[in-house]
């Protein structure tokens, strides 16, 4: 823990200490003009070799064993440089057998995927807001009911394209919404990360 605090204070002083600041223009190769490079060389329409999808079947010393929904078996290497999202940024010890995931990284020679980013149980759903209940929003998703839990300190809402805020009281029954959330495995429930919705009626 002390080590963690030291590392955090080092990173904090690196970004907030004023002595080392240089102008952004010094980062020539990172300037916007250089940013419009060609896309990578994966053929459009083809399976992406650097992407994995499936459910966790085992976790072993920094390696996630994942059964792809199409039958592929994946070995995903998690390092200090890998980000793990499970409703919010978290660590490998919060990942459980049975979780679903998407992962992006670099495919190594032995078939292992060295993960850059892992999103655990993430869902992105287009829904109708069917009803509100204490700390819950009932969604209608393709005619099926999904229960969304509002998680204090995490759940945020973006209304009418404005920046996300924690206040959920403007959520309205009957409106369309898009919701990024974390599925609770083998249920019809999710925890809500971000809800994009509107307080204005659209005609359609």
């Amino acid at each position, binding site marked *: 823990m002390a080590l963690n605090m030291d590392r955090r204070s080092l990173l904090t002083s690196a970004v907030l200490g004023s002595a080392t600041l240089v102008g952004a223009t010094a980062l020539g190769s990172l300037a916007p003009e250089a940013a419009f490079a060609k896309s990578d060389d994966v053929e459009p329409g083809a*399976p992406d070799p650097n992407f994995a999808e499936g459910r966790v079947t085992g976790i072993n010393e920094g390696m996630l064993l994942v059964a792809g929904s199409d039958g592929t078996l994946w070995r995903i290497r998690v390092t200090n440089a890998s980000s793990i999202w499970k409703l919010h940024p978290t660590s490998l010890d919060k990942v459980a057998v049975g979780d679903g995931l998407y992962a992006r990284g670099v495919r190594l020679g032995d078939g292992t995927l060295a993960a850059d980013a892992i999103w655990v149980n993430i869902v992105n759903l287009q829904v109708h807001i069917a009803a509100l209940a204490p700390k819950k929003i009932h969604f209608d998703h393709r005619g099926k009911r999904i229960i969304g839990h509002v998680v204090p300190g995490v759940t945020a809402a973006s209304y009418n394209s404005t920046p996300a805020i924690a206040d959920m009281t403007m959520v309205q029954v009957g409106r369309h919404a898009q919701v990024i959330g974390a599925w609770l495995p083998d249920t019809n429930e999710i925890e809500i990360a971000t809800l994009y919705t509107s307080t204005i009626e659209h005609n359609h």
Partner: protein
Amino acid sequence: MAGIYGEVSWFCCGSSWGPCGSAGHGACGTCNSGSRQHAWPNTSDACHSITNPEACGESLSRRTCGFKHYTTNRCTGQKVGTTIADCGPQTDLFCGERTCCGSVCGSNRLIDLTPAAFSAISSLSYGLRPAYIDIV
């Protein structure tokens, strides 16, 4: 055609877990979350009558299964090439919605990428990005 500006999001399809499990392989029967593919609002008359992009003032060409589009995340300039595998998104539900980063904004949902494609140009934990869509 010149490219078009709009919003990009992601959706899942094919064999999958969770609420995605019932999604199926899309209107083209080929859609998979792990492939570089996308949904387009005008793949057929039936598709077009559901997504109804004209309601938002967007006129999109008819393009069918397998057609290639290139989508640029305007927040970063990262670009990904994908083929049409499904009908969507339902543009008319979100008319006028805007997504911005800095002074760059995109309005109206014109394209949905698979997780494999979206994660190549953005994090999946961001639901929406302003995008530029072209055929090259």
